[in-house]
């Protein structure tokens, strides 16, 4: 069995996305910290794992991947019989629902929530000043996305179907970030979204990712 290595930073939402998936699938792995402050992610060594010089990167023996959502998809497919079932097996139509809500996370939720997380969480953390107009603009965008989610969650318990899948998992890092900021109100003010957030952030696998940050 080839050793799995997840390279990244515990501060990085994209790295956390992969770690959440590894814990859900109960797959053994080694976490290899990348010292971004020292520019390690731009070193030649690391660029051979991720040519864009970003975290995370993934190795399983001599097989190498990057892009967090490609990594989670590979893990969910390769270890389909272990841990939580994160896929939506079935007909092409059934699988398409999962694909769709993963796209929504990546293309609608992530841009607004990432920019908001940068302004409200990371900038203060690094001692920089929040740009309130950027924050307001992205809050408004995120609110519209969450309105769509509120309607969707009236039809199914989780985004793609009635059980937790990769589509929900992919949201965890940005949601967790924003829960520690005033943007929390965007989730709290929408009852179904609020219940879904409470549910997915309470998952034991996600708690393990959070525990890594506390060490």
């Amino acid at each position, binding site marked *: 069995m080839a050793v799995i290595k997840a390279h990244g930073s515990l501060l990085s939402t994209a790295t956390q996305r992969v770690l959440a998936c590894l814990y859900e699938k109960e797959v053994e792995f080694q976490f290899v910290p990348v010292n971004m402050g020292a520019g390690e992610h731009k070193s030649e060594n690391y660029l051979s794992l991720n*040519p*864009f010089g970003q975290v995370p990167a993934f190795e399983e023996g001599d*097989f190498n*991947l*990057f*892009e967090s*959502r*490609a990594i989670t*998809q*590979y893990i969910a*497919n*390769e270890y389909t019989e272990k841990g939580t079932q994160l896929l939506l097996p079935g007909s*092409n*139509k059934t*699988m*398409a629902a999962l*694909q*769709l809500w*993963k*796209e*929504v996370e*990546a*293309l*609608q939720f992530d841009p607004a929530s990432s920019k908001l997380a940068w302004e409200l969480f990371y900038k203060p953390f690094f001692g920089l000043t929040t740009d309130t107009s950027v924050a307001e603009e992205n809050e408004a965008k995120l609110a519209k996305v969450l309105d*769509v989610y509120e*309607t*969707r969650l009236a039809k199914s318990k989780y985004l793609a179907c009635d059980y937790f899948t990769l589509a929900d998992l992919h949201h965890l890092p940005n949601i967790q970030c924003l829960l520690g900021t005033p943007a929390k109100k965007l989730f709290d003010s929408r009852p179904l979204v609020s219940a879904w957030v409470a549910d997915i952030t309470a998952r034991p696998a996600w708690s393990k990712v959070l525990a890594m940050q506390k060490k």
Partner: protein
Amino acid sequence: MTIKLYGAAMSTCTARVLACLHETGAEFELVPVNLLNGEHKQPAFLAKNPFGQIPALEDGDLTLFESRSMSTYVAEKFKGSGGDLLRAQNLKEAALVKTWMEVESQQFSPAISPIFYQFYIVPMQGGSPNQAIIDENSEKLGKVLDVYEKKLGSTKYLAGDFYSLADLHHLSYIYYLMKTPSAKLINERPHVKAWWEDISSRPAFEKVASGLILGEK
């Protein structure tokens, strides 16, 4: 049962799905959505795509939005006919295709979209392209294309020596880029240029290209 694709032939994201439909030989009907009349923001269309964007797709009782989930669905459903754009039979190849699909979505698209917007959409709205935005994003796109240049020096296509959905997803945006001064970003990189010439000369894409008429008078 024929697939219905709701959108506009000249729109980059609709063209992404059209390229896949033609490549797989799937039967479909293109149902025009009148963007100028705001049809995409009306309840009937919002019922298909709650984000009020084109394209949307219907296949019997399945409704999809987000162009890349649509192309993935089409590629999976019709994988026999035109070869497998997703390489589903080999999990590692499939993972590499997915990686480069993510690259297109997360690295390439955010850099090229603002350039496309300035050259094509802003003039339609009566404005002039903002050179600062074009320059800033050209620099970002250049860095992404440097990674492509290196990769395409070792494999014929992005995910490997086989054409896949990862390559296809780039077609419509690069097609429009090539008609602007920013075409040099592609032309200056020999492997990228050769790859572009290869993928854009596929018969399936030539059918889509004839509809990409934005900016033409």
